[in-house]
């Protein structure tokens, strides 16, 4: 009944979806799996109307439709249960359920709260949630809120003719085991009312719940299986599968690190809710990669090392000194440099020139008595522009106008020129084209050769395998397994995925 045919979606420089074919029948539960960046969320956004497709067609019961916004999609019976919950905390449960559709309870401008409460109870009964609809939403548990969210989507049943399609985006990521089981039982029962598209990182859950599974990779559907016949390992292979070119990751340039020179040491560090009992060592000349799915806790670990988030237990030492006061200033002073994922927000200052950006973290070295030594700044900038082949008209160019790859090089120059020797790379190649990626890999090797240690959160698993000396696989905030990646004895994608999900 709901079908996508050859759907395309392009963003500037990125072909996000390449001819997606997808269909869902009445009462079906469809699983959608893929790595980060495989195109799952783009696909979902097209389905529920947040994005519009550029090619192909979206069909409901064979008729082509086009949603300009989520509300139009809702009118056709397509609802979304968000991962980042979309309920407004300060409103009551019933107000959230009927937000934007209160008119049915209003007479002469006055809301009939009793009528709304009764209607809300009816919706909550669908999801078997026995709470007072007048409860303030923020007082509910996460699982309860998720059910309210589901109830809110199920109001579509009364509102629209035709069939419902409900998207569940990572609904289980923060739920306890029993809550997951409860949710699954509910979804199975609700099949009589709606079809579901279930998106999850957790393959076992998808296999358990879904009737059919679509596997995505690089904006394409690479596999489509009936769950009863599916084999987890095959799906995992399809999710990640691609031949790796050793040349690409500059593996031949990888040199052994210096085991006697420890730059960063984490000793049983915990931040409840984020990560637990993390012990790691970063050595000079090493690339240490944290691998895990989104939300596994790898970002939080990185943020703690940079001093943005104080861990509750355990100790972090930088070059032998225990870190006591956690802030970015201290870490920078100790030689830590952070290359954030949000390059345009936390990496470069757009509106400032290349030289201003490069010296921003080390103004002390480029000033005396508070006065800037601008010629020296420019000289440094010119040096790094030529060293890293930064494509900028001059050191005066506004960083905001550079391409992503060149912005990344500017951020790297900022830290390297200041002598930082502990570099934290958070998705350094995200959104870069292939040439720019190769430049980043070159720089990683060069920094290693200079004795710097690198902690990496890679954009893809191939990247992690290709670049690392050591890989720590993290799941649910704990280190599951540590791999030693000697040249020629690297773990396979499958080895990693096995511990990740």
């Amino acid at each position: 009944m709901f079908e996508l045919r050859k759907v395309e979606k392009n963003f500037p420089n990125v072909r996000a979806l390449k001819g997606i074919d997808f269909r869902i029948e009445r009462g079906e539960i469809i699983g959608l799996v893929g790595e980060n960046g495989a195109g799952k969320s783009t696909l979902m956004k097209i389905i529920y109307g947040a994005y519009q497709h550029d090619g192909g067609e979206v069909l409901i019961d064979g008729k082509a439709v086009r949603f300009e916004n989520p509300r139009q999609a809702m009118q056709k019976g397509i609802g979304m249960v968000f991962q980042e919950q979309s309920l407004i905390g300060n409103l009551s449960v019933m107000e959230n359920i009927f937000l934007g559709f209160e008119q049915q309870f209003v007479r002469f401008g006055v809301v009939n709260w009793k009528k709304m409460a009764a209607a809300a109870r009816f919706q909550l009964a669908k999801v078997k949630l026995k709470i007072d609809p007048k409860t303030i939403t923020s007082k509910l548990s996460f699982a309860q809120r998720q059910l309210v969210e589901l109830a809110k989507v199920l109001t579509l049943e009364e509102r629209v003719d035709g069939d419902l399609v409900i998207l569940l985006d990572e609904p289980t990521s923060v739920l306890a085991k029993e809550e997951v089981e409860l949710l699954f039982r509910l979804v199975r029962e609700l099949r009589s009312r709606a079809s579901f598209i279930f998106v999850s990182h957790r393959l076992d859950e998808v296999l358990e719940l879904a009737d059919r599974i679509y596997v995505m990779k690089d904006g394409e559907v690479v596999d489509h299986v009936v769950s009863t016949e599916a084999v987890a390992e095959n799906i995992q292979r399809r999710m990640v599968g691609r031949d790796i070119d050793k040349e690409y990751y500059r593996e031949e340039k990888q040199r052994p690190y210096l085991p006697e020179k420890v730059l960063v040491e984490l000793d049983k560090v915990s931040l409840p809710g984020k990560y637990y009992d993390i012990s790691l060592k970063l050595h000079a000349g090493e690339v240490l990669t944290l691998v895990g799915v989104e939300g596994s806790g790898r970002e939080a670990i990185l943020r703690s090392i940079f001093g943005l988030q104080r861990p509750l237990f355990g100790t972090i030492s930088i070059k032998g000194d225990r870190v006591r006061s956690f802030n970015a200033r201290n870490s920078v002073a100790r030689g830590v440099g952070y290359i954030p994922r949000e390059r345009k927000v936390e990496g470069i200052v757009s509106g400032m020139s290349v030289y201003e950006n490069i010296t921003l973290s080390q103004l002390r070295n480029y000033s005396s008595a508070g006065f800037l030594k601008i010629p020296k700044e420019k000289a440094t900038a010119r040096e790094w522009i030529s060293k890293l082949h930064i494509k900028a008209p001059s050191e005066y160019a506004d960083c905001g106008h550079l391409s992503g790859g060149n912005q990344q090089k500017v951020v790297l120059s900022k830290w390297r020129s200041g002598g930082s020797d502990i570099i934290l790379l958070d998705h350094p190649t995200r959104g870069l084209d292939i040439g720019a990626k190769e430049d980043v890999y070159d720089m990683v090797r060069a920094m290693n050769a200079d004795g710097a240690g690198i902690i990496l959160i890679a954009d893809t698993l191939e990247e992690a395998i290709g670049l690392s000396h050591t890989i720590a696989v993290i799941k649910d905030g704990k280190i599951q397994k540590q791999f030693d990646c000697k040249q020629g004895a690297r773990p396979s994608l499958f080895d990693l995925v096995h511990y990740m999900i």
Partner: protein
Amino acid sequence: MNLDKLKKHFPWITLVVLAIFVGLLDPNFLRPENLLQLAGDISTLFIMALGITFVIYIGGIDLSAQSVANMTTVLATLLLPLMGGFAALACIAIGAVFGLVSGFVSTRLKVPSFIATLAVGGVALSVGQYASGQKALYMDAAMREQAFGWMTGNIAGLPREMLIAAVLLVIGLVIERRMVVGRVLKAIGAGELAASASGLNVDRYKMIAFSMSGACAAIAGLLFAVKLSGGSPVIANGFLLPAIVAVLVGGTPLTGGVGGVLNTAIGALIVAVVRTSMLYLDVPATAQQIFFGLVLIVAIALTIDRSKVRTVK
């Protein structure tokens, strides 16, 4: 040349066009003496605007400047007999402290700057009223001449107020373009998150910006007190609007990061020319407020960087 590049030149083009327009109305307007007089008259306002520029530059706002200036007129008058010329330094220091408090409340206590400065402005108002006993005070003419005489009159045909403003402008320019403070303030205005991820002590520099604003407001109050030879807790009322207008019309947007003190100088001159043109056009003084209020709205709407404010609240 695209529109974006042209936008940068808007302020001075506006100034020139306006000046020519007024010159057509009355050729006397363009006479050098008249223009110098005009620049002299706007100096006090410009100095206040100069300070506010630093705060707007980092994406905040200072609504306390007028109250601080008011308070300073009172304190200057009271301190003159006690401290002579040093009263000036004391006033500037007090202004800087009030700014520092605003900065502290806004950065460390996380109170939005418009509320923080409004509140600190209330405190300054109270101090002014308390110190003055709620009446206008007058300076002793001889003492004023001795201590502050160098601030008034002309030197080589140039109004001294204008020279003071020019000196402050140069200092402001040096701070903005040649000093670490200026660089960091720019980084904060253009990308606060990146600035703090670069290991900069963002809070401290923000507080510096607020205290520079407080100090400038105090200097403006001081000049005003000397000019009028006295002080009162309401004497500088009506300064805040044109001062903010000067900053924004000059091309420093509410979202900060671009523009700067030179822009504010141009903005202040635009305000001066507009005021003069209103005289020529027989627009009553009372209507100026309406006009400047509307100009403020237009200036904000034209300059604000909407990519920096995700939801406009």
